[in-house]
């Protein structure tokens, strides 16, 4: 095999693998990416039922209801609220009045059916996406970022967690 043939084989092989990877990436980007939205953004954009997105906002105080298998609560961003139902176990840091990010889709009745409620907050207890969105809409209060020592007392209700 000559040097040229060898080089062509290598380049051909590399292009094949890179092409495969590029195809996979494009396909995966189209099918498995979710956008982030707050309740008022969701209302403006008329997100179709069944389309997955991430909902972020503050858990409306007093809205948390713990059913037998599902938990319902409302997410608010100051301008709009959206009811959320979730059949899983809520993360340690979930509290009424605090930031939350949930992933799922709207059902036909307009309720957001979440399959994940994110537990990964930073130490200021406010998901970055939520903080940005609230700041943009002018509903940010500086004490949101503070230590919620006084809020941590009341535990949220229990529930069931369902694997994704």
């Amino acid at each position: 095999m000559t040097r040229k043939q060898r080089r062509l084989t290598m380049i051909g092989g590399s292009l094949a693998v890179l092409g495969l990877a590029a195809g996979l990436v494009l396909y995966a980007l189209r099918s498995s990416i979710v956008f982030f939205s707050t309740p008022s953004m969701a209302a403006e954009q008329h997100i179709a039922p069944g389309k997955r997105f991430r909902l972020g906002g503050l858990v409306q105080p007093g809205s948390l209801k713990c059913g037998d298998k599902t938990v319902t609560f409302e997410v608010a961003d100051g301008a709009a609220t959206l009811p959320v139902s979730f059949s899983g176990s809520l993360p340690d840091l979930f509290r009424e009045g605090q930031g939350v990010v949930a992933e799922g889709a709207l059902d036909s009745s307009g309720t957001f059916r979440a399959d994940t409620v994110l537990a990964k907050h930073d130490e200021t207890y406010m998901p970055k996406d939520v903080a940005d969105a609230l700041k943009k809409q002018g509903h940010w209060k500086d004490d949101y970022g503070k230590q919620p020592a006084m809020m941590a007392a009341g535990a949220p209700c229990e529930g069931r967690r369902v694997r994704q």
Partner: protein
Amino acid sequence: MIAESGHYALVLALGLALIQSTVPLLGAYWRDPALMNVARSTALAQLAFVGASFALLVTLHVTSDFSVVNVFENSHSLKPLIYKITGVWGNHEGSMLLWVSILALFGGLVAAFGGNLPLSLRARVLAVQAWIAAAFYLFILTTSNPFLRIANPPVEGRDLNPVLQDIGLAVHPPMLYLGYVGFSISFSFAIAALIEGRIDAAWARWVRPWTLMAWIFLTLGIAMGSYWAYYELGWGGWWFWDPVENASLMPWLAGTALLHSALVMEKRDALKVWTILLSILTFSLSLLGTFLVRSGVLTSVHAFATDPTRGVFILLILCVFIGGSLALFAGRASALKQGGLFAPISREGALVLNNLFLTTACATVFIGTLYPLALEVLTGDKISVGAPFFNLTFAPLFVPLMAAVPFGPMLAWKRGDLLGAAQRLLAAGVAALLAIAIVWAWARGGSALAPLAIGLAVFVIAGALSDFVERTGLFRMPLSKAARRARGLPRSAWGTAFAHAGLGVALIGIVCETTWNSEYIATMKPDDVARVAGYELQLQGLTQVQGPNYREQVATFMVKLDGRQIAVMTPSKRTFTTRGMSTTEAALLTRGASQLYISLGDTTDGGGITARIYHKPLVLLIWFGPVLMAFGGLLSLSDRRLRVGAPKPAKELRGLQAAE
């Protein structure tokens, strides 16, 4: 005084780094041995000063000196001693100081043990190390000084984030940093070679042990971090494709590729330009990992810092080092002579394939991690790229790679015999098919993917074993002779077998855990019994316990198997009074390589408690695999050291050098 001394030592280290980054280069340019030798002494002195600075910060934390901001914000006088020490790197400033201390440590090691390097190469390598060090000293001193004082010292500290008060975190960051920063050595060698305009097989022989060492630490560091997330976050998940995790996976993938391409360069003098590029990319990805975690562009448990000036500074370091090194590469790479012809079907060809798949997989992780950031900057749209993306892109690239792994060591250099290799792998193939059949029958149908993946894993393990059998002549020769040959086998061959087998072992763990994991979630009251995977778990009671800096609610479960009591498990929930945060302490019961996992939820009004109970079959293999890989690396390293001590071409080079 202690804080001021630490600060001063750090400034002196910066001064030494500045000298080290210029004088040896001039010396190498003028061919002045005295100036070149400055690198050695400054590197050692720099290590001494930054080491002292780090030791002083540890002292401040241990003695709970709350007049120092860093101690006040991250420590508490009641915190156990071990977490006072690990708290030093549980925050941004301290972890950066650890980063730069490890950098100085590696520089010091090159200075101390690089006696057999050509003088000019050693001078240039240490100078490049000093550039990196100087940039990070400047970063620490201007934006993240850990020695700042508070005007009115408070009596008590704010305590460390409770999630981080864990033994896993005592070991995870130093391991990870040893890996990240270890790749700076291969980077410095690459830059030095580009400046020098000369590179040969001896170069690869010097670089390989350093790369291997960094790779071992990074492998262990990632495995450790994954295990920490598994038991500490209370979700029973071990990999979340979180950007911070990806930040450590990318250098690992590139570093693994580098390890293999350096092999080709060392043995066959081929793939030179590619190896240089990989060295640059691997360290660039390590820097990128530091940037992603430290700049606050991402938000997760790991991101302690959210100060934009820091982000911009690290971004600047990133641009200068990556841009500069790539520009140098573009300018000089063509000067490096290519050598070593080989056919596509050969050991070199197999290693090229390995590199191709590893770097492509690394690129997909890169896109998945950075695309959301880029999109947000460009359009303002917020998206999240989660596990589905990575499962769709990463897994299909890893499957062919793993299928090819057993073939690599079976092929000869230059021109291999694929058919011959396939024949020698017949036994491994049969074992894989048997494994598929057995798993299929045992699982009674179900997903076809899982048995196939297990088959692939068995093929990789059996392939590593048959390579070993082939080399020692086991089963073909009398046992005593085979044993003698096994002893005579180079350690690196053993290392390859262990590392490759580790890959298969980890895959078995991953497949079993994700496919046959069973879980039980319910609200339990005392004397309630949960049945999971044949085990009976009875909740005996709930008790309150007072810890050093937290209150703890402990649930006691009696575990029975076939009516016989086998263990008592005590998961708990801790509430840390200072930060008002609670953490879930999962209880783990190890049975063979499988684990029972209990984590507690919240208490309910009726006196019950939510419990999540998982049975995770063969889950420990996920981390045992990487440990095997690291052990293989260690074996290989012990082999290399013997040769690195006296590389033959080096002696000739040194002879030449002396004549110059």
